[in-house]
């Protein structure tokens, strides 16, 4: 707490010294009213759960309630459009997945400019896990690649539809490894997982927590994951061990409307850094093999730009065009 007060004091002094007016007074008092979190997905989804991890603590630190509002639709476009029209006073923010970096290359007429949005923080990142149905004639990633090379177009993988992370991660795997695993789109991860368990589709790239019950029940095997290094208690190897250079990370970011002053994002950043340093939060995330990041706004901007560049390449490789 002392640290925050000192940091704020310094910042205020700095701002006064510079003689910047206007947003200053507001930033000092921020937040002056309840903060609205736009969740651009349907209620009850993974982003809701992730936001719950830190939103209560954040509201305690800032002394204002945080109200979640779900505005689902179009791979987060509808929620983002609302955010881009909100007042840049830090009282409207959005928790969004990496989809925000894919959308400029999927939609021809986005109702906002992604580059003008102000990323406050990259909150977490996590890799996909490759779950493969248990009755296939290979038992690790190397054999899977060899099989796929010998039988092009024979293996199938479930995805969550156009522009989804699973589709991009699969596209990247196909192009990096030089194989052809056919994509079968589903409405969500749940449906594609069921179809792999039932033996209709061969594999699925999905979050660790979603694959785990099937792996424990013996319907699926953890083959690999899309991050780096061994993962979790199961010691799941990274795909990069068999396909050098392969990496795909999902992430969650806190985004503010265009032209939000840095005083506000700084205040949010320092609170978030503290929250993600707490043992309870760390343990909760580690249990699900999620990495807490809580980057600063200065780090978040280039992160988003790099991710957008990566998404652009993958999406073009898959052959998707903006519609």
């Amino acid at each position, binding site marked *: 707490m002392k640290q925050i007060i000192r940091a704020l004091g310094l910042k205020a002094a700095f701002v006064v010294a510079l003689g910047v007016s206007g947003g200053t007074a507001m930033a000092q008092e921020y937040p002056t009213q309840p903060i609205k979190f736009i969740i651009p997905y349907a209620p009850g989804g993974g982003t809701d759960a992730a936001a719950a991890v830190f939103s209560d603590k954040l509201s305690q630190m800032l002394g204002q309630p945080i109200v979640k509002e779900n505005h689902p639709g179009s791979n987060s476009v509808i929620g983002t459009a609302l955010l881009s029209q909100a007042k840049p006073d830090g009282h409207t923010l959005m928790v969004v997945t990496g989809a925000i970096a894919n959308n400029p290359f999927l939609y021809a007429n986005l109702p906002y400019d992604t580059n003008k949005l102000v990323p406050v923080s990259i909150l977490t990142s996590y890799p996909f896990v490759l779950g493969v149905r248990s009755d296939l004639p290979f038992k690790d990633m190397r054999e899977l690649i060899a099989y796929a090379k010998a039988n092009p177009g024979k293996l199938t993988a479930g995805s969550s539809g156009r522009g989804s992370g699973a589709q991009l991660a699969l596209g990247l795997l196909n192009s990096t490894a030089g194989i052809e695993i056919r994509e079968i789109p*589903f409405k969500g991860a749940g449906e594609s997982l069921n179809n792999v368990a039932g033996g209709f589709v061969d594999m699925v790239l999905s979050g660790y927590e979603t694959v785990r019950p099937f792996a424990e029940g013996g319907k699926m095997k953890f083959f690999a994951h899309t991050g780096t290094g061994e993962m979790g208690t199961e010691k799941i190897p990274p795909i990069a061990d068999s396909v050098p250079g392969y990496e795909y990370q999902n992430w969650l970011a806190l985004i503010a409307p265009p032209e939000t002053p840095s005083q506000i994002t700084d205040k949010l950043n320092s609170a978030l850094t503290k929250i993600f340093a707490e043992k309870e939060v760390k343990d909760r995330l580690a249990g699900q093999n999620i990495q807490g990041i809580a980057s600063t706004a200065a780090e978040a901007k280039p992160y988003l730009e790099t991710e957008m560049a990566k998404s652009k390449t993958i999406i073009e490789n898959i052959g998707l065009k903006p*519609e």
Partner: protein
Amino acid sequence: MEFFNNLDIGFHAALSLNNLLFCFIGVLVGTAIGMLPGLGPLATIAMLLPLTYTLEPVSGLIMIAGIYYGAQYGGSTTAILVNLPGESSSVVSCLDGHQMARRGRAGAALAIAALGSFFAGTVATLLIAAFSPVLAEVAFLFGPVEYFAMMVLGLTAATLLAHGSFIKGVAMVLTGLILGLVGADVNSGTYRFTFGSFSLTEGIEFVAVAMGLFAFTDIVANIRSNQTREVTAPSLRSLTMTAKEFKQSVFPVLRGTAIGSLLGLLPGGGAMISSFASYAVEKRVSKKPEEFGHGAVAGLAGPEAANNAGAQTSFIPMLTLGIPSNGVMALMIGALMVHNIAPGPYVMVSNPEIFWGLIASMWIGNAMLVVLNLPLIPLWVRLIQVHYWVLFPIILAVCCVGLFSIENRVLPIYIAAGFTVLGCLFWRMRAEAAPLLLGFILGPLMEEHFRRSLLLSNGDLAIFYRSPLSVVMLSVAAVMCLIIVLPQIRQGRKVAFEEEA
């Protein structure tokens, strides 16, 4: 042993304080709307649907289910007391039930209806519990191909077995199919019929369609019709029935339960058909058919048991196969999908607490209904006397709040308004809107599975006859079309001739 294990999971879920409360709210609301003529369970559930979004899925379903079978009870009460069937399924109860009341046996009639329904409800609940796991074994046998075949079968059955004009049924299903296509296509991600607007990319909001077509249309239809109702509260001297009445009702209740349980399973079936069928059977097997219509105990006990059993077992196809047998079940599937639970055989495996919790709650709810219905009858009678000009504005306001809260925007309210106009049009045309809702939900699913099957087979249509399950279901659908369409054409001609004459 597993049977008891499952029931244990179920009662564990259903007996939590929270779920008991929602069960109670469900049956209470159900009884209330069952008594109000015109306001049916379909309309009520459509209204309460947004509320269930924020609940645990199992609590939401328990409440919806409570409304559904609660309405069957409530409907019979008004039928007996004031000769007003609150529900279409209790039309039959008017015939002999009200006659009994007029002869001073109102209390006995109500007791027979309540206890008969309770018995039927218990048996049907046990049936669901016993047979559903058998169907669940096929859970993993269902892939895209089998799902497609099942949707074809479901849609065909729903269209053909629905009452009313066949052509209108087909037209409504097709309209539903087209409306269901709006939004992003799952397989290619292409936008269809969105006219470049981002607000339509997720498709037309299902709740808005249901509310417009059912709840709001009902209100408009009721305002148009005569609003004066005479309520003569009958004397409730005693709720006990005589030994003779009890004996007379035992076999009809048993037969009614059997008929209802069976007919409830059929798509397009459920409570109403069951009660009519039971009445017909009772009249046929009775030694004194001339008593029917003049207060025959069998004519009340049989249909009452049948409509409740039918209402309960119509959950089986929905819960195990994801096929809605009527509009209410279609709404329940919608409620499940909101919680990201794909309806189908897999629900039982992936969410046993939802499945068994719902089943256990049905039995608890039935017991609650007996308690609710007998002592509270004077209170219910007063409810019938509430004026529409008080009731309707409240309902409308609550609905609009609910519609707004789904996605925090006003568009669904406008969509519901549009569908109200459409619904009134359908009502004037005497076309039933339920098949439209089925088409709306099942159509896009059918297309999705069809195209996914072809993706898996690399475009080879042979995939549909390589699976024995799919062959059986598609053949049944084809045979059903043949059997029903042929007489329909003949009948259609006959009716046309009659009209000319």
